[in-house]
């Protein structure tokens, strides 16, 4: 099937074609670029909710509970769940579906797992393109789950309209970890596993941190949930809706769309540059350069400069066809 035919079938509601299209986008290269060119103008209707937070905070279970609520409202839901890739083997165990079994059997839900591969910041490089495909295919609510994120894995803010930062009591000193970067990108803050005795303290810590921040136009609400029991989910849906309305009503909506566009373009550009840098570094003619650095005749910075110059001077390298 040609790329055009695949896109057309996916947009016409063929779920298998959509699944194959997502693989194509994930593979990158000219075919993915062409597919995305066809998809991008067809999207823009979906509200993308990004869920991020430490491993084990309950993101997958929360997504299953959220998806059920949106389904009750009749919204088609696309789920994109990112899991880490092994830096040693390139393999990945994609296990988020285990927590999403309750969504099985509903044709209005499409769940896709994706390995982070060469992505940075807790997201796969193809996450934005995959959201564009789900969007164009008519999934008006997209739930995007990042890998279990630590302090500065904030790439989701460049893709999602509304970022939900999920924390949970009892994960050690994780409120400390939230302080640095994650908390700042949260449009909604969730304390999940709220049936635990120390949940109140975790929520109080978030309230305290927030009280110290300068008053922004949008103060992220703090929502307590127990995803496993389905408690607090309606509150979370409502908080997300309020943020969506805030985006629509304020200038922040337009500004944020441009911010997201910039982030998506920058992420794709740095990935492409990264690929070309690696190709340039692998060329046999660079061996002398590495030797010079290894013997301290030149510095790593000089070698880096030589690499950057080589990349800027050369035409784009075609990807090896897999």
């Amino acid at each position, binding site marked *: 099937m040609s790329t055009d035919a695949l896109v057309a079938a996916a947009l016409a509601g063929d779920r298998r074609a959509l699944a194959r299209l997502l*693989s194509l986008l994930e593979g990158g290269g000219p075919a993915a670029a062409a597919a995305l060119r066809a998809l991008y103008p067809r999207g823009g209707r979906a509200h993308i909710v990004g869920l991020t937070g430490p491993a084990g905070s309950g993101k997958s279970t929360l997504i299953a509970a959220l998806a059920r609520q949106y389904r009750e409202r009749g919204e088609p839901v696309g789920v994109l769940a990112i899991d880490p890739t092994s830096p040693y083997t390139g*393999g990945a165990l994609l296990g988020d579906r285990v927590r999403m079994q309750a969504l099985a059997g509903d044709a209005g839900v499409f769940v896709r797992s994706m390995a982070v591969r060469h992505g940075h910041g807790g997201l796969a490089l193809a996450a934005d393109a995959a959201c564009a495909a789900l969007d164009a295919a008519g999934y008006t609510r997209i739930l995007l789950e990042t890998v279990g994120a630590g302090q500065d894995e904030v790439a989701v803010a460049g893709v999602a309209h509304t970022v939900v930062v999920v924390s949970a009591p009892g994960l050690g000193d994780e409120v400390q970890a939230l302080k640095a970067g994650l908390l700042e990108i949260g449009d909604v803050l969730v304390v999940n596993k709220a049936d635990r005795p120390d949940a109140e303290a975790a929520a109080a810590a978030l309230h305290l941190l927030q009280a110290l921040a300068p008053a922004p136009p949008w103060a992220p609400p703090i929502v307590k949930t127990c995803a496993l029991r389905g408690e607090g989910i309606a509150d979370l849906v409502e908080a997300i809706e309020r943020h969506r309305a805030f985006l629509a009503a304020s200038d922040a909506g337009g500004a944020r769309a441009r911010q997201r566009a910039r982030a998506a373009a920058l992420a794709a550009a740095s990935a492409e540059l990264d690929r070309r840098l690696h190709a340039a570094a692998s060329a046999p003619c660079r061996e002398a350069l590495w030797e010079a650095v290894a013997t301290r005749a030149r510095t790593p910075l000089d070698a880096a400069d030589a690499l950057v110059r080589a990349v800027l001077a050369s035409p784009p390298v075609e990807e090896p066809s897999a």
Partner: protein
Amino acid sequence: MADTVPSAEPAPVAAAEPAPLPPLQPPARVLVAKPGLDGHDRGAKVVARALRDAGMEVVYTGIRQTPAMIAEAALQEDVEAVGLSILSGAHLTLVPRVFEELRARGLDDLVVWVGGIIPADDEPALRAMGVAAVFGPGTPLRTTVAFVQRAVAERRARLGRR
């Protein structure tokens, strides 16, 4: 895989095991699934982990999956191979239903293999249903890994695409 049921002959440990291939690019995409009601998935998790360590992207869906859930996951995840782990003895009932559900979704060209407590006598019947390989208790992980890698590589060559 089997830690309770002393059944089926252990698979012969082949002396001339083919060397594992380097990971495919893009990585092989595989579903490991447990149909039926048996409630323990140590074996499935060990196999999933071994496939991951061989550079594959392995979707694992947990226990007590219906054939329809497995086929739907295979479709949405666009996997190239499906491994079914069955310890309950219901393989002759479950495996044909999984194939039915796969075919109903147009997924008739996937590599399907079965692992678990499978008596050797049942292997021909499973193969006749379209199962590409059966791995009983005692199968070395490298045998399963080498099989999946080769089967996915051959499927890519046959289809002319990932």
